[in-house]
């Protein structure tokens, strides 16, 4: 709590990011009060420009863009959040196992990880979703994105663990007879968790981007509203050529606000956690 207060006071980027994220969550919670069902179509007049009745206009399928957007953001955030949860948990296990074990195990694991880092993920993602076409609902998509986003983060976590292992306080703990499990839990994790939080955001952003890309290609469940499928149906009914810009503008602008806000929070968080800038700040406030 004190950290949040501190961040809020000293960091413009964090303030901006936090306010937008708060608004996004407000929008998401509004989806529970929507007058329409998420997958309902032809409930309002088609192709209406934004007006008082429909503040963001309506789509070619007869949906209200504003309420559709609340569902879309909810689903997209859910998919990305779940993907991050799955991917990062495995990445943490893999990275710390590799880092703590060292030696031959580490070498073998790292050459596998390096291979997967080099392999381009988008063609692989497209290949898999083409094969399971139709079977890929939101949960499946989250699982798939999670599995493909293990390797880069696990490499970063491993190097964090390696550097923590060489720190002086680790040696002090070892020599004073603390057991390995306690060292990891009490000495290393307090350093590791904040780093993990800041880093998880990059996975979150990647997952949002990939969800959009797959939906554009028509490779996921197109009946569920997400940011990606909103753009897909907008393109499908030629929103750009027939001057119905509002259909595309809502998901495009929404997604930009979301990713920039989360990114600002993550950078200000990691800057805040960096010991060098921390000392500077302490010096300035005294």
């Amino acid at each position, binding site marked *: 709590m004190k950290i949040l207060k501190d961040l809020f006071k000293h960091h413009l980027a964090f303030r901006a990011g936090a306010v937008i994220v708060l608004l996004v969550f407000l929008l998401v919670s509004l989806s529970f009060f929507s007058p329409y069902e998420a997958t309902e179509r032809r409930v309002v007049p088609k192709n209406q420009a934004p007006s008082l009745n429909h503040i963001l206009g309506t789509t070619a399928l007869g949906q209200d863009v504003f309420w559709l957007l609340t569902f879309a953001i909810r689903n997209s955030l859910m998919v990305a959040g779940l993907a991050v949860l799955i991917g990062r948990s495995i990445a943490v296990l893999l990275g710390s196992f590799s880092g703590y074990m060292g030696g031959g195990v580490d070498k073998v694991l790292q050459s596998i990880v390096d291979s997967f880092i*080099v*392999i381009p993920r988008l063609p692989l993602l497209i290949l898999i979703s083409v094969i399971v076409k139709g079977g890929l609902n939101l949960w499946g998509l989250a699982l798939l994105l999670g599995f493909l986003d293990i390797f880069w983060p696990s490499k970063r976590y491993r190097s964090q663990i390696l550097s923590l292992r060489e720190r002086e306080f680790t040696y002090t703990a070892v020599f004073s007879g603390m057991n390995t499990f306690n060292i990891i839990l009490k000495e290393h994790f307090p350093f590791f968790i904040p780093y993990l939080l800041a880093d998880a955001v990059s996975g979150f952003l990647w997952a949002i*981007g990939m969800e959009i890309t797959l939906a554009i290609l028509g490779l996921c469940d197109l009946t569920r509203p997400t940011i990606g499928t909103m753009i897909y149906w907008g393109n499908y009914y030629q929103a750009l050529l027939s001057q119905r810009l509002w259909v595309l503008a809502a998901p495009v602008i929404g997604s930009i606000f979301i990713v920039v806000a989360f990114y600002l929070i993550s950078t200000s968080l990691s800057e805040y956690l960096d010991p060098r800038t921390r000392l500077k700040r302490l010096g300035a406030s005294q």
Partner: protein
Amino acid sequence: MNLLKSYLLPRIAQWVITVFIGITVTFIIPRLIPGDPVERTLSSLGSLQTLDPRAVESLKEALADLYGLDGTQFDQYINFWKRLFKGDLGPSLSAFPTPVIEIIAKGLPWTVGLLTTSTLISWSLGIALGTLAGYSPKRLWWQIVDKAFISIYPIPHYILALILVMVFSYYFPIFPLVGGASGKPTLSWTYISSIFEHSLLPATSLIVLSTAFRFIMAKALTTTVAGSDYVGYAETAGLSKWRIVLFYVIQNTMLPQVTDLGLSLGAVFSGALIIEIVFSYPGIGYSLYMGVFQADFNLILGITIFSIVGIATAALIVDLSYPLLDPRVRYK
């Protein structure tokens, strides 16, 4: 000799491992899904009705042959490799019987051209701007550039490309909307300039996207180096700012950037695929898009395999040029 043993051989071994893992994954994935892959592929193929029955029969045979469904899983796996060694990726299903490799060969020059130019430009631009911004972070001008890149960086590739298409081809039609060139491929000035004109917008989007990441990384690296003792001494000695930036800062931040370039090629390539799809640029990405559109599984599989091998090889080339830059590797 020492260089070969301690640096080059492990890199080449890593390339072999990468290709082996990548190809094995593409072999396993289609077999994880239950059901007969031949029937499944045929049933999802939209153009089937328009083919005459004999063509369908030969298509079926080609598919069965392609999946190599005879024998045990292990036999199939060996056959899969044998075919790949011969450079055979099978026929395309939507443009039967054109071989997939021919379609890839047609798109390859476009993708490689787009990718190398934009990577080189964004790499140099990102390092140059990032280093300057990191070296004098107080300047208002650099702060504006910094904020701009930080806001562009997290935007998904597709969204940014879509905005650029909307603005520059639709509202201010300065650039041609789709395609790679106009007219017949000849060595004339008009044809070459039309290639350039068509590639301008896709290349710009790709450059904007990858420069943002390079800039952020270069700035972070420079901030560390700028606080180091040797830069402090150089400043005390009264060396000119340009000399310090060029020979003291950039040279020392270069190595992690090269390492990262090799590793990030896969991500850049994925970005290029998305850009090609948005701008209908006639490269591999667009072929992939057409493959998805026409449920041409074979084409998608072929492009996936090809891009894994291609990117792994490109990363190997970057890695092998590393000793040219880092004297520590050379003299170890």
